[in-house]
């Protein structure tokens, strides 16, 4: 019989928030209570979400796995499936299978300072890791959270960032390439923030998620600041259709991003992402 994880389960939308003009968040509850109870994910993993009659998309899991509550996904409407998902409302049902992939290095981050650098909707896959760490505040040193967006209107979860900032030894820095009126944060790309960030060179783990040009710009600056390349981790995005390493679309060199990643240790993927066409 088929592995249960590669046939979707029905999941019901229990809440929905329109975050910006084209970004929305849904909380999903697996309809079958047995599957709901057995479902376990790890920060940085993703689910394949299925819109009836249209298809599937890989979407990272925002919610903290330890909440055991509904599964939260934050989605930008860009393609056929995500535009369709955008039109679903509370009470509607979609398909969900997962979780898939290798998530964030929670073990490696233990007892260390952590820098989280995200760009655009790259803030979503890192949220579950931030929440996970903040629940265990004493297990980590300084936590520095950097988020950059294109336009100030694109910033989501502003209140959450402000709440995190109040926590001991947590620094939050936000930037927009283009600031709007009353934008109280920095203007420029994420590299502007790196100059202001408190990054102890010793014992620091950096996790990055967002557009590849952003990550490629940030990494040399982390290295300059003395961060060990083996302690830099990034989440890579590619076309994924199966989630289980079969369909072949997400290959980057020898890596199947959907299963070997999406999170990689920087030296393991560095050679490939620096080259056009991989």
């Amino acid at each position, binding site marked *: 019989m088929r592995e249960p994880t590669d046939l979707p389960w029905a999941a019901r939308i229990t809440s929905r928030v329109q975050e910006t003009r084209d970004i929305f968040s849904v909380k999903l509850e697996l309809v079958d209570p047995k599957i709901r109870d057995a479902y376990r994910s790890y920060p940085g993993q993703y689910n394949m979400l299925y819109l009836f*009659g249209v298809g599937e998309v890989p979407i990272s899991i925002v919610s903290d796995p330890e909440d055991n509550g509904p599964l939260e996904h934050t989605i930008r409407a*860009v393609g056929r499936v995500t535009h369709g998902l955008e039109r679903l409302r509370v009470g509607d049902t979609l398909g969900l299978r997962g979780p898939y992939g290798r998530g964030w290095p929670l073990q490696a981050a233990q007892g260390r300072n952590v820098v989280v650098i995200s760009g655009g909707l790259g803030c979503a896959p890192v949220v579950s890791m931030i929440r996970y760490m903040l629940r265990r505040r004493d297990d980590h040193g300084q936590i520095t959270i950097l988020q950059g967006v294109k336009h100030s209107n694109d910033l989501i979860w502003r209140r959450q960032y402000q709440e995190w900032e109040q926590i001991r030894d947590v620094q939050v820095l936000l930037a927009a390439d283009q600031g709007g009126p009353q934008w109280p944060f920095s203007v420029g790309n994420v590299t502007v923030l790196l100059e202001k960030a408190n990054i102890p060179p010793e014992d620091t783990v950096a996790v990055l998620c967002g557009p590849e040009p952003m990550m490629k710009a940030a990494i040399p600056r982390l290295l300059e600041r003395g961060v060990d390349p083996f302690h830099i981790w990034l989440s890579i995005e590619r076309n994924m259709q199966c989630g289980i390493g079969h369909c072949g679309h997400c290959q980057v*060199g020898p890596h199947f991003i959907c299963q070997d990643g999406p999170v990689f240790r920087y030296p393991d993927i560095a050679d490939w992402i620096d080259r056009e*066409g991989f």
Partner: protein
Amino acid sequence: MDEQTVFLPRAEADRLLEALRGAGFGRILGPVAREGTLLFQPLRRWDDLPAGVRDVQQPGRYRLQEQDTPRCFAWANGPQALKPLTFRPREPIWRAQRSADGQLSFQSTQEDPEPTALIGLRACDLAALDLQERHFMHGRFPDPWFRRRREALFLVGMSCAHPAQTCFCASTGDGPAISRGHDLGMAELDEGYLLWAGTQAGKTLLERLDLDAATAAQRRTVEKETHQAAMGQRRTLPGRHLKQGLYERLQAGHWKDVGERCLSCGNCTAVCPTCFCHMEMDEPALGGDSSEHLRQWSSCFNAEHSFMGHFVVRSDTRLRYRQWLTHKLGSWHEQYGRSGCVGCGRCITWCPVGIDITAEAHALLKEAPDA
């Protein structure tokens, strides 16, 4: 082939089909000359096989010709062998049902594959099946559709004494003799066939046939013909470490050269017996209450393959050809422990502009490594 090898006279060859039917294989497929080529089709009797037929293969060209021989396997291969039988070109994998109140339920659409015997598989085909098994069956998520079809197969390999001009299985180490992956191995002589078992199922079948041992002279003839088939192959892949060699030449000028000749049509990936890429899609029923989720062969030569919503990772043919070749001859080593090429030469023959993987690999390795 060994002392256990037995001989089946040509006039009695139908006994093999009868024995296979008797062993529960209601469906027997073998190569049949059709549509100007050799296709795996149901065999009713041994006479359905392409006796006196040879294939003439060249880059971008495939023709069948008649020749004066009683042999049924005096050719190299056709465009497909095993791959479409285990990994379907297009198939539903599950179905979503939507009830009147909008609730969804999901059902797997697995069929019960009919026990099938395949006659006339080449060593390259069996090596390719092994690679597809590594991909679909031996990973973390064994593919149930592939596995069930695979498990329903009985594989009769046929040592190759007639390689085409496009063949290079001797260079990849996968042929031309049947040496692994077969339930039953066979080799053809003018007067009949030598048979040997590769598995217990093959052994049981041979016992059922109750044939005389092959003579030492017959075995020597087969060995000589197979040896000649290997020696007669003119194409080779470069004998050095191809993965490293290609990885060190990702900026080579030759990628542009081949990119300008390649039509990006995907014929090579369609006929390649190891290529596994496929896309997934939905096909909703007109009534609106159900939708089939399908998978369909796709190709790294299509823009769809690296489409990312806002951009295409491999926007031109040069990058797509480089992806295909560096995967096939390079990163397969890291993924599945060996090259993804079994030397069948199909990508050369069926390429409409005759691009030759062996020539391209040699040309690339002649260039200096990237700075």
